[in-house]
């Protein structure tokens, strides 16, 4: 898989999204080419580099859940509004995220990636903000499909 850092256009979409929504964190996760595991490949606004080492099993964690279901996921007050244990959400623990909105990336037709925005305080992402994330996800899908993801 091409390193996202070699794709400035992709990073630009993420940076623009972060500036527009004024969120604390933006992350991009993808399912591994071999095997069902999911890894975080890019982050903006990160506090540390733990995200690079996190491997989420298919169906687990925020990224795993979004990819396996193909549906967006929102958390507004982590760890108080979650199903399961707080350790099931490693990216939220690693980056101290309290609110999150994550959408699937269809590459080209099946969910293979996740675009996530997060804040380090309790927050309910508005419909307009969700729409902005959805638009950024569509732009990323086009860029990444063109790159053979």
């Amino acid at each position, binding site marked *: 898989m091409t390193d996202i850092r070699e794709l400035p256009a992709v990073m630009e979409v993420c940076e623009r999204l972060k500036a527009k929504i004024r969120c604390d964190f933006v992350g991009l996760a993808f399912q591994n080419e071999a095997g069902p595991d999911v890894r975080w490949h890019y982050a903006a606004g990160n506090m540390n*580099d733990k*995200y690079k*080492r*996190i*491997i989420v099993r*298919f169906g687990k964690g925020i990224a795993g859940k979004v990819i396996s279901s193909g549906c967006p996921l929102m958390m507004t007050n982590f760890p108080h509004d979650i199903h399961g244990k707080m*350790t099931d959400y*490693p990216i939220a*623990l690693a980056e*101290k995220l309290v609110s999150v909105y994550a959408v699937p990336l269809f590459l080209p037709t099946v969910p293979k990636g996740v675009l996530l925005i997060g804040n380090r305080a309790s927050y309910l992402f508005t419909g307009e903000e969700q729409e902005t994330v959805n638009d950024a996800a569509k732009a990323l899908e086009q860029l990444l499909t063109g790159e053979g993801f």
Partner: protein
Amino acid sequence: MDPLQTKQQISSYIIDSQEEDIKRIALELHEGVGQNLYSILTGLQFVNSAIKEPQIKGYLQEMTLLIEKTIRETRTLSVELHPPVLTTLGLIPALRSYLKLYTSTFGILVDLDSAGMEKIIPERNSIAVFRVCQEALVNAAKYADTSNVKMTVHWTEDELMIRIQDFGKGLNLKELRFPKPTSGLAAMKERMLLIGGQCMISSKIGEGTLIEISLPL
């Protein structure tokens, strides 16, 4: 009998029964469910080699991938519940295997340093020590806000000592005692006491938390 001693015996019995159940489920998943899934996988691969229709072949391929994924999930779940290495190879290999999973789950690097010759200890004791280490590490992932943990295991002739030091934000232990004791930390101490060992917890705001476990051998 002394009420404290009775209470300890009851706690010990409950923990032992739970560990027995966990071990049984883990073994059943690995040896029973896992093996059956593996038989289904080889059966599907055999059927696939005899099929000519591309549509059905494609469908079988998807089924095979799904079974492979389920086998992996079952194995991981089984190891997460009760690492078989703990009984077959001992504490250090079990800890190394868990640390690999820990780093890939939470992104936290753990530097494990083992000194001295590993001794064979009763399974009940090795499980207790392993669970206390697990609890300490999970607590670091939950609350310490750290990227690095240092773990030292020291075997002497008559004692096993383990130090787990996160370099995180630390906590005020005095504040935690009131109004309610932190159950995770209290359980770690209790668990070590039940096998004749000790668990000391010290922490300083801004400098991290240190867990020291000792067990007479």
